[in-house]
């Protein structure tokens, strides 16, 4: 089977987001960008499924600006077989909404015919947590979100999901869309030889129009502001003072 893995290029996990002075968004000029950490986990899982002999091909897809090809090269270096870059905007500040992303991915999925699409559960920039569910609905495929364990059993996936009260296990018929959670695996680092090899792997570039998808924006961002900040408080000298503070604030 084929596995499709969408990977988003986002502000690096370790970089603090700064709100632009004019309140129009987060400043993404000249900052380190990386693959969304949840998408790395999804890609790692796809590679493991392939290594176990349960998949033949992994296709990585990224949607955004031209520079997203760097993210795709990273995906190829980790172990994806080929990549598709959808150039949807020329401004990195223009975030493509999950609904449009789902439309683009659905169009690619119909063309490529994967049995499984593995997505990160959320992008750490817009924090929507929506693409996998929307994509699954558009394709009318089965849906398994927040996966912490995936077992491939012929045409069924047994997925353990991290839910609020603990863990839930479901069987999902393939084709399926699965969104992955943090504890599914620990992604590998690409080795230098694999980084070199990745340069020769195929990377196809397409436009949303080629896929019959229009870029729309249903949520207009009116303003972006800093959250209310908390002041650092008092450093206490001893445990007795701390006990007093805890007692003042319990049931208060």
């Amino acid at each position, binding site marked *: 089977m084929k596995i499709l893995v969408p990977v988003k290029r986002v502000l690096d996990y370790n970089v603090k987001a700064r709100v632009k002075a004019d309140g129009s968004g987060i400043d993404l000029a000249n900052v380190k960008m990386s693959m969304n950490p949840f998408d790395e986990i999804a890609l790692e899982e796809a590679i493991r499924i392939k290594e176990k002999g349960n998949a033949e091909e992994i296709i990585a897809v990224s949607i955004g600006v031209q520079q997203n090809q760097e993210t795709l090269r990273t995906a190829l270096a980790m172990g994806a077989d080929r990549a598709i870059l959808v150039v949807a905007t020329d401004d990195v500040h223009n975030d493509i909404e999950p609904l449009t992303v789902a439309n683009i991915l659905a169009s690619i999925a119909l063309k490529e015919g994967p049995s499984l699409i593995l997505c990160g559960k959320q992008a750490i920039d817009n924090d929507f947590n929506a693409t996998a569910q929307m994509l699954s609905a558009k394709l009318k495929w089965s849906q398994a979100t927040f996966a912490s364990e995936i077992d491939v059993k012929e045409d069924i996936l047994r997925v353990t999901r991290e839910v609020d009260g603990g863990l839930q296990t479901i069987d999902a018929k393939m084709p399926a869309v699965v969104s992955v959670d943090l504890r599914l695996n620990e992604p590998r680092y690409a080795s230098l030889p694999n980084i070199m090899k990745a340069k020769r792997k195929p990377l196809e570039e397409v436009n949303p129009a080629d896929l019959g998808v229009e870029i729309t924006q249903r949520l207009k961002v009116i303003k972006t502001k800093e959250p209310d900040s908390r002041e650092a408080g*008092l450093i206490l000298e001893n445990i007795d003072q701390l006990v007093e503070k805890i007692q003042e604030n319990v049931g208060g």
Partner: protein
Amino acid sequence: MKILVLAEINNGELAEDQTSKTVSAAATLGKVDVLCASNQCSDASTNIAKMENVENVLVLENELFAQSLAESYSETLIDTLKSYSHVFAPSSSFGKNILPRIGGMLDVMVISDVSKVISEDTFERPVYAGNAIQTVQSIDKLKLISVRTSNYSAVPSTGSANIKKIDCKGNNSLTTFVENKMQTSDRPELTSAKVVVSGGRGVGSKENFEIIEGLADKLGAAVGASRAAVDSGFAPNDWQVGQTGKVVAPDLYVAVGISGAIQHLAGMKDSKVIVAINKDEEAPIFQVADFGLVDDLFKAVPEIEKKI
């Protein structure tokens, strides 16, 4: 404007706090109807009917909804949704699983994790792990909203809504439920507890986490954990507080051996009072804590427990 709230019900048991706070957020726009879909609805619907600002409780009782699987739930809802302009659900694993699927089916964008309802089409929501707050305006006819319930208070139980049975069609040939492994505990629920005691990587092991649990029990608190502690296997996943875990805003949050990564702060910085215990005086947690103690947690926590 016609507003529907999706009640979170797990196998017949109403998640009362989450549902009530979602009603509270939705009610800023007007009276609401609440959908009560589960395998057993009598207790849940009676409780929902008492929630202030609820006009009608729509009861959909069917075995199909016992586990709220996304496919069965959204398929069935599509018809019911047609007469509504707004659909609210808690931003829990239940709401996050279902609302975007409905959005995909109807070609409507979902507005996730809303921290403030400003008007019928304008909402505030945190992005970048809460490092920024965005105000967004939706142009969709139907608004699908998941609510960050820690930003709202539960509604009073002084209402008396009508309870109406509705018909259900729909099925689920795509996914089947296998089993649940839920944590059972006598402690208060993490997202609604008045006091939360959380442990981080500094706690060091699963056994040592008993120190955290001991203090929590003394305070009648819920137990939380940082991602580092959960990833290391010290604590179960449903204890995780942070950007990708649960968001809490208790009266008192006690952070023990937690350095305070931005992803953790995203889940607890709206707490009324934050107390931090960490042996590293440079730990970022002290930047948000109201009261800090620089000390070894293995010495300090048992002593605190004894003195309270």
